[in-house]
């Protein structure tokens, strides 16, 4: 009986005009999107290689002292993610490179700045198509699955058979979903073939697994929406009511919940803004630098007498060693203090921010589409996980450069007690720039993405099971008279 119902649903949907319509929309949107994104990826890889080459040339032509003093910055570039066409995530909003110098790492341009402004209205990546377009169409299919048959009276005829109600429901669930899933599957496979033709790195390690996971996650998401549609359809007497109710649910889950969770998180756990934090930091830096310069000035005048112009090789020579050791000691001490205080401010802020983000993210998991967004962008290496990894890599590289290069550069500013400010700089050991390590960033593996996303899976699983169970209860309770 189950087979018969599945076959009936499948045939009914496949033969209706909705089926080719859905197929067409899916094919046009997904294939164009993948095609254009693949072209874009090619351009970005070219850009990336070109920029690395140019930076290398610039570095080779630069004078080593300029590199030491940070006049010629050292750069670390972000390699483009091949899967950004599936879920662009934060990819375009991350700085394409960081510039490293003695003061720290400075973010470069983002790809957002380069995109046509028109793309603000929405990015047509695979994720957008699945969660906005396909989800709505799936709900549309599901809306009259039961309510339509109630209205036409055919439900009575079906229930007059010896089929138990759960078989009828399961048959509708499987048959109806397969009808929407088939075009989706076909188009996805076509898309993968298209990517293969367009020299997408299909054979790269982990890539087939990632693609399979993307498809699996999207299927789970669509299945969850189908179950939701079925629940609404089982609960309403007319397919028109079902449709209105379904659209409502869609709008709330799709648009309101993720944003509402941000709002709640900001109210429950307020944090100071970035501007306040950078002001705090600059106050700390200024006061420590000032103190240091004053101390150095005092010592300089004490050693070499009032009114001696500041010089890297001051007279008398006998006191130079004393001055150098005092200077080194003061500078090291100040640097340590500065680093410690900045770290304290920064880590406190990051902790608070992470907490607020976690609240928002966990609340937003109430919505299956937020769960899908998170899961897919992490699988594609464009999500929260890889953003964090990129920042960590930048921080680590800055520390490496500080230790290997910038610690050999001394910049001394003195404020004389008698008035006047002077500064000078020196390099104690020249480092060959070619020996410096290159910036390295590796995107997270599939395992990291899965481990960091158990919440998303849980949310999807909940949305898979709960609406179906509720639909089952409603359907069992339905009075056929």
């Amino acid at each position, binding site marked *: 009986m189950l087979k018969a119902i599945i076959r009936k649903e499948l045939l009914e949907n496949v033969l209706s005009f*909705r089926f080719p*319509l859905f197929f067409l*929309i899916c094919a046009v949107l997904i294939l*164009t999107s993948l095609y*254009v994104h693949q*072209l*874009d990826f090619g*351009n970005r890889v070219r*850009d990336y290689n070109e920029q690395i080459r*140019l930076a290398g040339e610039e570095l080779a032509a630069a004078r080593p002292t300029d590199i030491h003093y940070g*006049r010629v910055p050292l750069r670390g570039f972000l390699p483009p993610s091949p899967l950004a066409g599936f879920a662009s*995530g*934060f990819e375009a*909003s991350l700085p394409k490179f960081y510039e490293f110098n003695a003061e720290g790492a400075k973010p470069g*341009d*983002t*790809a*957002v*700045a*380069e995109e*046509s*402004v*028109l*793309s*603000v*209205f*929405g990015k*047509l990546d695979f994720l*957008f198509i699945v*969660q906005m*377009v396909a989800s*709505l*169409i799936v709900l*549309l299919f599901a809306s009259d699955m039961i309510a*339509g048959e109630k209205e036409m009276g055919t439900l009575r005829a079906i229930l007059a058979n010896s089929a138990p109600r759960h078989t009828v429901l399961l048959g509708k669930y499987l048959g109806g979903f397969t009808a929407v899933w088939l075009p989706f599957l076909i188009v996805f496979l076509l898309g993968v073939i298209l990517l293969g033709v367009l020299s997408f790195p299909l054979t790269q390690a982990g890539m087939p697994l990632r693609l399979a996971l993307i498809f699996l996650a999207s299927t789970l998401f669509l299945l969850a929406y189908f179950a939701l549609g079925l629940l609404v359809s089982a609960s309403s007497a007319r397919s*028109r009511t079902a*449709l*209105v*109710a379904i*659209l*409502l649910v869609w*709008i709330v889950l*799709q*648009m309101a919940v*993720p*944003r*509402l*969770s*941000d*709002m709640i998180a*900001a109210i429950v756990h307020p944090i100071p*803004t970035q*501007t306040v934090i950078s002001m705090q930091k600059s106050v700390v830096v200024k006061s420590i630098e000032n103190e240091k310069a004053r101390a150095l000035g005092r010592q300089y005048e004490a050693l070499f007498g009032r009114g001696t112009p500041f010089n890297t090789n001051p007279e008398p020579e006998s006191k130079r060693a004393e001055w150098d050791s005092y200077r080194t000691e003061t500078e090291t001490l100040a640097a340590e203090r500065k680093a410690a205080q900045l770290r304290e401010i920064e880590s406190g802020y990051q902790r608070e921010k992470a907490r607020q*983000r976690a609240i*928002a*993210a966990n609340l*937003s998991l109430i919505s299956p*589409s*937020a769960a899908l*967004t998170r899961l897919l962008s992490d699988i594609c290496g464009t999500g929260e996980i890889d953003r964090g990894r990129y920042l960590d890599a930048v921080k680590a590289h800055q520390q490496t450069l500080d230790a290997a290069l910038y610690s050999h550069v001394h910049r001394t500013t003195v404020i004389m007690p008698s008035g006047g400010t002077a500064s000078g700089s020196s390099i104690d050991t020249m480092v060959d720039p070619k020996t410096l390590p290159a910036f390295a960033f590796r995107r997270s593996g599939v395992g990291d993405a899965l481990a960091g996303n158990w919440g998303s899976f849980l949310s999807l699983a909940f949305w898979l099971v709960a609406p179906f169970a509720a639909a089952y209860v409603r359907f069992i309770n339905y009075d056929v008279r």
Partner: protein
Amino acid sequence: MEDWSRKESPVSLGKRGISKVIWYIANRELVDQLISTRFLIIVLLVVGLIPLATYVGLEDYKNRLQDYDRLVADKQKLMAGEAGQKVQGEDSPWTPENELAVFRAIRRPDPLSVFVRGLDGAYPEYWDFTPTGIEEGPSALRPKRLSDLLGQLDMEFLIRVVLGLLAILLAFDAVSGEKEMGTLRLVFSQPISRAGFLAGKLVAGAAVLLVPLAAAFLVALLSSKIFGMESLPSDGSLKLLLVFLASSLYLLCIYSLGLLISSLTRSQKTSIIVLLVIWIVMSLAASPVATFTAQAICPAPSRHIVENQKKRLGDALKTETEKAMGAAYRDVTGVENRMSYGDFLDNKDAVLRRIDPIISSYVNKRRQLLAEVQQEADRQENGQNRIARTVMWLSPATTFTNVVTDLSSTGDESRLAWFAAAERYFNRLEAVLFEDPPMITVRLGGMSSTLERRNLPSISELPMFVPPKNQVVTTIQRALPSVIILMVHIVLLIIGGFIAFARYDVR
């Protein structure tokens, strides 16, 4: 649908003319719709979502305003300091802070972007002016949170998507429902003209849709006040009123689309499915598709690459010129291996006589070289924007987006106006400063030195940046083409609806 028997017999209406028929039908339709559940639910939904959207928009606006204030404070500090008194007009890499930032044109975010976000976050936050051209600052738009990836939620979005959906839900069964139930036959057995019937439905639909729209605007204004927004400037309120009018036009357009499809189809189910699919394509997929089409047809190099290319060309030319000037310096002063300011001052007139033609030829060459690169890039980018806009005009939803963003100065036209203003300012600066540089760098052997060619002007002697006009009249002018397109959509859809309805065979 309601019971016809209890109504005043329409027979007598026929004699009193078509306006009476329209009024009669509209009245019946109005009551029918206003008491329906779908109407109530959607109105509640909009009224619930608008405060959320306003909150999100306001937070974002405040952040951008903070950025703006910081930039303005930085600029003022710079202008008050030495860089403001002595403008060198040269972009030297070893000045600690780019001294050309004294010219920086900073854009204040528009308060209306709270309601109609548009491209406001995607504009550059500022423009810098250097001898090699205009450099754009970063834009505030950066998805920071997960929810930012789901697209922006503002009043424009809610009107376009949620109220657009309401318009479809009200219209899909307006004709096909009556066909299916057979009430249409009854109506036609009365002396009611088909045109009058459809016009009545149209009037009623438009009137019903005005209710949630007005509620949305009132709630938005109210919640923005509650969340602590500064009061809008007087022309801001006027612009908001225009946005309201444009929104009603848009809803009318969607409603007429619904009537057209409803007249074409025989069953409600077909009608709603066709309508929803059109709606999805039109309001969700149209703008990304437009962008994609434009990018595929007319690929333009990224602005960053153009900027880099210009910089490289300019730098190469500059080094060459600096060397030529160094050679001139050597010829005049006769010193080969050292450069000093004293030598320069001693021979200033002679050196400058030799150097001036080098500078003017450099300026000419630079202008020609950079203009070629820029023109090519502009041509491609403009072509891309034109294609995207044309494709967008095919859909009422994207046309609506264009209209309201243009009206609230957060649209593409307003962006172009800012770029044009930056261009104008650059040309003025070029004429008085960059083509007659007060400071020059001279390169001789491995040394380079910066020499003062003429007295350094202070920033107060140089022209100021004039932001583009932002009056109501200007914004109307900008929005006008899109408004006309929207009206064309409405007229075509209404005519189509009437034709489809007139062709309907009642048997």
